[in-house]
């Protein structure tokens, strides 16, 4: 029973940064732009968010600065792909490496700093009164930090936004038929900009969650491909926000199992367990792609 709680808790904490990036990228892809740059946004968010958290001990500032940093990378991605018509994949890679260099350059002084007094700064875990008493699930799911709780709601919010509001419809129309958007009197270009920047902002917040709360430290290139995984997982959830839980926590579960299998001496090669997150994502991707016709936004079909 305790093992189950452990795995669940690790799954949630490992999956949360991915969930942010995933939802962000999903919004961008709904508008017809794939942002591989979420990797870069996460890195920038992680670095700058951590720096702000150390300097101000204020969670709000940390999140805002991380979101801003991620959003800036998102803006670059939007500018390059929308206005300059450059290859989405290539610009995503470029921005990722750019972020890597930039964070290594400026994050150097953060490497040795410990965040100390985390609990006082609103970064600590909060147990939700009633729910946290549920056996197994209570400790794993409802004794978390504030950003994790927000991430629980995020896919729902985006779900309502996309399916129940006018603006969601317009966002999707940009990814399907920009002519329709135009006919409704909206500027598809501006909406794309907004969506891609939003992708960066959310990924940046994911980065903050990762550096400030999850690992409590900044290390060079700490995101280590999680942004790419998020992008792959968008396809896995067929561009439907409600499936983001499944996709993100699949990765979280894989990472929890990486260690779990080793701690419990399960006779599987260590390297197999280490490649689990990538392998599982790949297998799930294959499963989804082959079994169903994915509901891909029209605009993406040209790119992909």
């Amino acid at each position, binding site marked *: 029973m305790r093992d189950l709680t452990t795995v669940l808790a690790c799954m949630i*904490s490992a999956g949360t940064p991915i969930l942010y990036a995933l939802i962000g990228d999903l919004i961008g892809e709904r508008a017809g732009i794939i942002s591989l740059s979420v990797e870069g946004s996460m890195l920038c968010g992680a670095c700058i968010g951590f720096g702000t958290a150390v300097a101000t001990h204020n969670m709000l500032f940390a999140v805002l600065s991380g979101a801003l940093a991620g959003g800036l990378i998102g803006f670059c991605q939007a500018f390059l792909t929308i206005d300059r018509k450059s290859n989405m994949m290539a610009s995503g890679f470029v921005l990722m490496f750019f972020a890597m260099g930039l964070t290594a350059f400026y994050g150097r002084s953060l490497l040795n700093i410990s965040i100390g007094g985390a609990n006082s700064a609103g970064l600590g875990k909060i147990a939700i009164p009633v729910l946290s008493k549920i056996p197994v699930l209570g400790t794993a799911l409802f004794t978390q930090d504030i950003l994790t709780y927000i991430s629980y709601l995020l896919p729902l919010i985006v779900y309502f936004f996309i399916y129940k509001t006018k603006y969601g419809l317009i966002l999707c129309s940009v990814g399907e038929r920009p002519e329709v958007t135009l006919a409704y009197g909206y500027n598809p270009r501006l909406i794309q900009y907004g969506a891609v920047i939003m992708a960066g902002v959310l990924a940046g917040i994911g980065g903050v969650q990762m550096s400030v709360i999850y690992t*409590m430290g900044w290390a060079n290139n700490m995101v*280590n491909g999680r942004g790419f995984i998020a992008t792959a997982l968008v396809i896995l959830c067929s561009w439907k926000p409600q499936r983001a839980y499944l996709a993100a926590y699949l990765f979280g579960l894989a990472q929890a199992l*990486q260690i779990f299998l080793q*701690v419990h001496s399960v006779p599987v090669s260590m390297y197999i367990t280490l490649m689990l997150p990538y392998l599982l994502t790949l297998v799930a991707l294959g499963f989804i792609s082959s079994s169903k016709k994915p509901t891909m936004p029209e605009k993406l079909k040209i790119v992909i």
Partner: protein
Amino acid sequence: MKKNYRILSLLLVLFLMAGIMTGCVKKTDDAQTSGQPTGSGSTTASTTATGNLKPGEGSKKIGIIMGGSKDDYGFNYAFAQLADQVQKELGIEAVIKENVPTTSDFEGVCEELISQGCKIIFPSQFGYLEYAHNVAQRHPDVAFYSFPITDYNGGNFSTIHGNAHEPWYINGALAAMYSKTGKVGFIGSLPIPDVIVSVDAFTLGAQSINPKIQVSAVFTGSWADTGLQTTATNQLLDSGCDVIAPFQDSVKTVIEICASRGAHAFGCNADAYSLDPKTWLSACITDWSGYIPYIKAAIDGKYENVNLSGGFKEHFITNAKYGDTVTPDMVTKLTEIRKKIESGDIYVFQGPVYDQSGAVMFKDGYRPTIQEINLVNKLVKGVTGKLN
């Protein structure tokens, strides 16, 4: 596409021009060296020019080449401290190059360091060995002190090795004194010999205090994936461990999490006492004071090829400052163990040593050589986890 072509070519021309403008002085030297018909020619030229000098003689700079970032509170941080120490005690400059992959790229970096005046080179990773040896043959006037102990040494290429198992043995003893649950976690990176020796020595040390202690070893497959470190630390603590010993380049995350959960943590290859004195226990760190005399001798022109290998006694390796919660009692006990190791009463891998399956690794009373210890490819009895 046409336009891009022109832009690119012009860009290259601009880069070239700028290069020639700033680099014209050196360019002329170049013309001379490249005038030589073959590479070996230019090498011999440099040999004869400096033939009278002993390796490392009169060096104003030492070069340190490391595989990661120097601020990692880990293995590379230790080398950064060598740089500080050399600067302080010998008054010569230390040039550090970080993040060099363990591939033949090393040669390029090394040549660059030598061209900037480094006459003494410390390659820190095993992977550099072969390439460092190549460079050493090209530059007989440069003294090399390469890390792991191997049979490469000769001429201006010395090998040095600190017996990491001795401090790790003491770490193990300390962990056993601390652990109330009788379970200790070890977070390895990749199963390279240094890590295997460390986890084995750690376990043997722990068993010397509490024979029933269990060491739970997991591997993260990378040196600084902090996300995975977090998961590993949390799971190990959840599974009942109350002391964590990471063998990672960046241990900050592990220490922070242990602090927030009231457990204790070791460091790895660097003194990170200041991060959290209450959580911190100790770490195995390189004691550079044993090496400094050799560097000094080389600078004074008294270089000798050495195959240095030693532990506490030779001042090659030591334990970092103990944490605030380590009681004077424990310190006394640990100092005793240390004295015994120094005097040879305790030999970490003295047989009988059994592997996980219970088979004999070193038979009763046998004291394996350093080479044999470094070739250990199995976990000892009492460790859960596996190497493949």
